[in-house]
Structure formats: structure tokens, C-alpha cells
């Protein structure tokens, strides 16, 4: 577990944050200029803050007069721009960290297999695509035997296709290695897929931190995190596969049907429900093509800019967000405690639990 308290005065910008990072993937979320990269650079020891207290497990990395230099921190860092050594082959890049770390918890062959690097080993970095470079950079960081892995927007420089290529690898890392990770991003769909907890920064300050599902379904954070991308994550269990190709999932609010799902019965999934793709109805709707209709109860209504309002809904112990117009909310008479039905226009699988 990482604990960090950082304060630094830049020209016209002050960073002052304090947070803890539990096991799993913690997303460091914020718009550009929020101070995300500064925070990870300080944690890695690449920059010195005016005041810094950083502890990783039992080890004190920064405190009072202590400042452990980067090479003794055992913190892996995947940079936005990969930063592979151009004079070394992929294999030599991967092995670079092992010259300096004594033991190794993950084997070379395992990392090569996990990230699909086998065919790249003999090449030099100039012959790799952006996505391949980033996979090698992740492997190189893993093989330096870190206690914590920092990923600073590793997908930001990639196009949509290459992002889609890397995300599954990152999910596998999260699920197969017990290595805490800090994932810097300003892309909500990515965060929803990867993060188990989220730290939200705004202009150098900590806005919120907590489990991913709580943060994603907090209407007061939706404005900061981007209203267009706002959406909550709920947990569902695969109940059965129907002969017509639909999988039936059980959620706290009822059944959800999804096509083309290759996950075994009994598995638990995380589903992401974009707030703008939820339609509300006071009665169970009839004669509608939508399949996924969940019974819910209104918890609160939050005013957001323009004509919209964010409705927080409760499905047993889980929460989802719906973005509707203020006019509709008034017409439906929505208020805390009112029962209603949520019609889901789209549901995305955010990952296997």
C-alpha cells in the first residue's frame, strides 16, 4: 500500500494532495493540468516536491530529510512515450532492469507470454509500432521487479485500434499479478474498465478518492469527470446462455441480456452503463424493443449545466446514474424514494470481476 502526501508550489499552480493507494489498480483521474503527472513523477522520485511524504508498505521513500533516489525506490514507471532504449534490442530493453534487481518475482518468459512479445525480441525499438513499444515498456517495467507500477497515460499517444490492443493486456496484469498499480488517465471508459479505485484530482487538489464503483456513480463528480462520459459500473453474474445467442445476466435490479458474450455461466462481470444511455419510466414499459429494463429507486437528483439533471438510482446495494432533461424529471415527478424503471440503451462490459 502506498501513502502519499505531496505539496509543491509551481509558478501559478499549487499542488497539494494526500491519498492512499490500496491493492489493485488505482486510477489517477483528472483533466490535463490537474497535476497527475507531477504526482506520479514525485512518487517515482523523478522530481522533488517542496514537501513530500511517501511511504510504500514499510519503506519510507520521502519524509523530512529523506529522499530516496529513483533507482532505489523499486517503482516501475511506464511513460506516455514508452522511452525504450534505442541502442538496445527489445530483449535487452526487457532485461535492462534485471541487471540491477536481485530477485525476480515474475519470470522473463511469463512476461513475454503475458504481453505477447515473443516475435519482437530480436527487433530494435525503431521497428516497433506505437502499441508494440508500449507493451515492451510495460514488460520492461514489470521485469525490474517493482513493488508498485506507475502507468502515466500509457495509451494517450496511441490511436483507437492500438488502445484496444493494449487494454486486455493491462486487464490481465491487474488480474494475474498482485502488483499495485497507479494508472494515470483522463479517459473515463478506460478508467471504468481498469480501475478498482479512483483518485480524482482537480487543479492540484484532491477532489475525491474511493472504490471505483462509488466514485463513478457519484453525481457530484460527474461534472469534473466529464458529463458526456459519465456512467456507473455495476456487477452482474452470468446466469445462462440462451439458444438465440443472448447471455442472461443477473443484476441487483433484474435481468440484463447481452449478445455475443463468451464468458462461462457463473462468472461475475462489471458492466458500465453510460448515464446518457439510460431512459427512465414510472411504469414498466410495454411494447418496447429495449430488452434491458431494471427496477430501481430514485436516490437523488443533481442539477448539472444546461437543461440536464443527473438522477442517481438504487438497485438494491448498487447505484447507477441517468442523465435526463430537467423537464422530463419534472414531468415524471421524480423525487427521492420514487420507484421507477431504468431502460438501458447500451451496456458495455467493463471487465471480469
Amino acid at each position, binding site marked *: 500500500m502506498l501513502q502519499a502526501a505531496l505539496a509543491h508550489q509551481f509558478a501559478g499552480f499549487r499542488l497539494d494532495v494526500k491519498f492512499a493507494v490500496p491493492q489493485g489498480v488505482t486510477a489517477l483521474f483528472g483533466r490535463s493540468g490537474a497535476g497527475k503527472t507531477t504526482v506520479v513523477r514525485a512518487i517515482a522520485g523523478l522530481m522533488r516536491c517542496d514537501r513530500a511524504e511517501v511511504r510504500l508498505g514499510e519503506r519510507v521513500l520521502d519524509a523530512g530529510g529523506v529522499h530516496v533516489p*529513483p*533507482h532505489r525506490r523499486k517503482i516501475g514507471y511506464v511513460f506516455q512515450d514508452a*522511452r525504450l532504449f*534505442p*541502442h538496445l534490442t527489445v530483449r535487452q530493453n526487457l532485461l535492462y532492469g534485471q541487471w*540491477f534487481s536481485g530477485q525476480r518475482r515474475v519470470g522473463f518468459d511469463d512476461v513475454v507470454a503475458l504481453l505477447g512479445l515473443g516475435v519482437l525480441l530480436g527487433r*530494435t525499438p525503431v521497428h516497433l509500432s506505437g502499441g508494440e513499444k508500449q507493451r515492451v515498456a510495460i514488460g520492461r517495467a514489470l521485469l525490474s521487479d517493482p513493488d508498485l507500477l506507475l502507468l502515466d497515460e500509457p495509451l494517450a499517444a496511441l490511436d483507437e485500434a492500438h488502445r484496444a490492443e493494449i487494454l486486455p493486456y493491462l486487464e490481465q496484469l491487474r488480474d494475474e499479478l498482485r502488483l499495485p498499480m497507479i494508472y494515470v488517465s483522463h479517459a473515463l471508459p478506460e478508467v471504468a474498465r481498469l480501475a478498482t479505485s479512483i483518485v480524482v484530482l482537480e487543479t492540484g487538489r484532491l477532489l475525491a478518492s474511493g472504490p471505483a464503483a462509488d466514485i463513478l456513480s457519484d453525481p457530484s463528480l460527474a461534472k469534473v469527470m466529464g458529463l458526456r462520459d459519465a456512467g456507473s459500473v455495476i456487477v452482474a453474474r452470468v446466469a445462462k446462455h440462451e439458444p438465440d445467442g443472448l447471455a442472461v445476466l443477473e443484476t441487483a435490479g433484474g435481468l440484463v441480456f447481452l449478445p455475443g458474450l463468451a464468458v462461462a455461466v457463473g462468472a461475475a462481470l462489471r458492466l458500465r452503463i453510460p448515464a446518457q444511455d439510460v431512459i427512465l419510466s414510472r411504469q414498466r414499459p410495454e411494447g418496447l424493443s429495449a430488452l434491458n429494463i431494471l427496477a430501481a429507486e430514485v436516490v437523488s437528483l443533481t442539477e448539472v449545466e444546461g437543461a440536464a439533471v443527473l438522477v442517481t438510482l438504487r438497485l438494491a446495494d448498487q447505484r447507477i446514474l441517468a442523465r435526463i432533461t430537467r423537464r422530463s424529471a419534472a414531468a415524471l415527478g421524480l423525487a427521492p424514494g420514487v420507484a421507477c424503471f431504468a431502460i438501458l440503451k447500451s451496456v458495455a462490459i467493463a471487465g471480469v470481476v
Partner: protein
Amino acid sequence: MTGFSPLEWAAIGLSVRVSLWATVLSLPFGIAMAWLLARRRFWGWQVVNALVHLPLVLPPVVTGYLLLLTFGRNGPGGRLLEQLFGMTLAFRWTGAVLAAAVMAFPLMVRAIRLGFEAVDVGLEQAASTLGASPVWVFATVTLPLILPGVIAGSVLAFAKAVGEFGATITFVANIPGETQTLPTAIYALLQVPGQDGTALRLVVVSLVIAMAALIASELLARAVQRRIGGR
């Protein structure tokens, strides 16, 4: 035209020996100075930078005279070397090495400094997060990446040292067999009527050495670039 006289051989041999020593001995200092000028900003940076470049703009005779004042038998540097190592520079071939090294130093530093400035500091940071101490970062990342600059700087320095005339003749004179290098030998021959032919042979030798150095550096730089750039 074939056989060189013993004195000609001595001049050729001495030129190559002086230039090689001057290049090799100034290389560590050249790398250190280039690093200092490329990576550090400190009080007095301008002064250090100007001092390094001084031999490039001063008349070589002035540099040679300053060397004579400092490292001559009665100069402070000369006396120190005499007492500590029993070493004399003035009017010896070792002095020619010093003169050549001083004159070539700015060229070497400039080329290596360009190399440092071309290295992405981000790569060095990446190496440190992978566990490499500053010394290891320098040895395994920085040094391989500045190698083209080091080669270019060394060749420039070698070529400058082979051609060095003014400071050498002022500091160590033109003693056949001891301090007479190719340029000073050619100069001496040209002072004597009827020796133009001999002078011309040494001019050809100078040309061959210069061409060989340039071609060797080009081949070396290309090999290094292949390794670094993967091309």
C-alpha cells in the same frame, strides 16, 4: 620519391604519435567538460565556456607563448611537473602533445556537447526508474548514445592536432627528431631553397593521414548509428 629519409620518418611518426596521445589524453576531459557545459547551469558557466573556446579564437602563437610561460622550465606549471614527476614539457615531444591537445580541445568539446544535447533526458530517467544508479545510467544509456559525437569530436581533434603549427612551434620549437612534426618540417623545408620536392612528399603524407582519419570516422560513425538507430 619512394624512400623517406630518417628525419622525414621521424616527423611522420612524431605527428601521428603526438596527435594520438593528444586525442586520447584529452578525451576524458573533453567528455567531462562537454557534460558540464551541456547539462549544468552554474555561476560562471559563461566564463568556463569562454575559456574552453579561447584557443579557437586566440592567435596560436599567443596560446603557445602562454603555454611556454606556464609550463616552461621557469613557469609555475612547469616547475610543479618537474618536482612531482620529473617531467619537462618545453621543447620536448610531450610538450607538443600538450600544445596539440589544448588547441584541439574546443573542437572536441563542441562535438561531444552536441551529442549530449541530442540525448533525451527522459531515457536516462527511465533507466533510473529501472534501478540504474547515475553511474550506470551514464555507462549504459548516455555514453552509447553520445558515441557518434565522441567519434566526431575525436576525429576533429586528431585532425586539428596533426595540423597544429603555431602553438607547437612557439612552445616546443622545431627540433628535428624531438619536436619536429609534419607541418613544422614542411615549413622548415620550404625555408631552404631546392627542397620543394621533399616538402611536397610530406604534403602528400599529410593529405593521406587526413583522408584516412575522415574515412575511418565516417565508417565508424555509420556502424554506431546502425546500432543506435537500428537502421
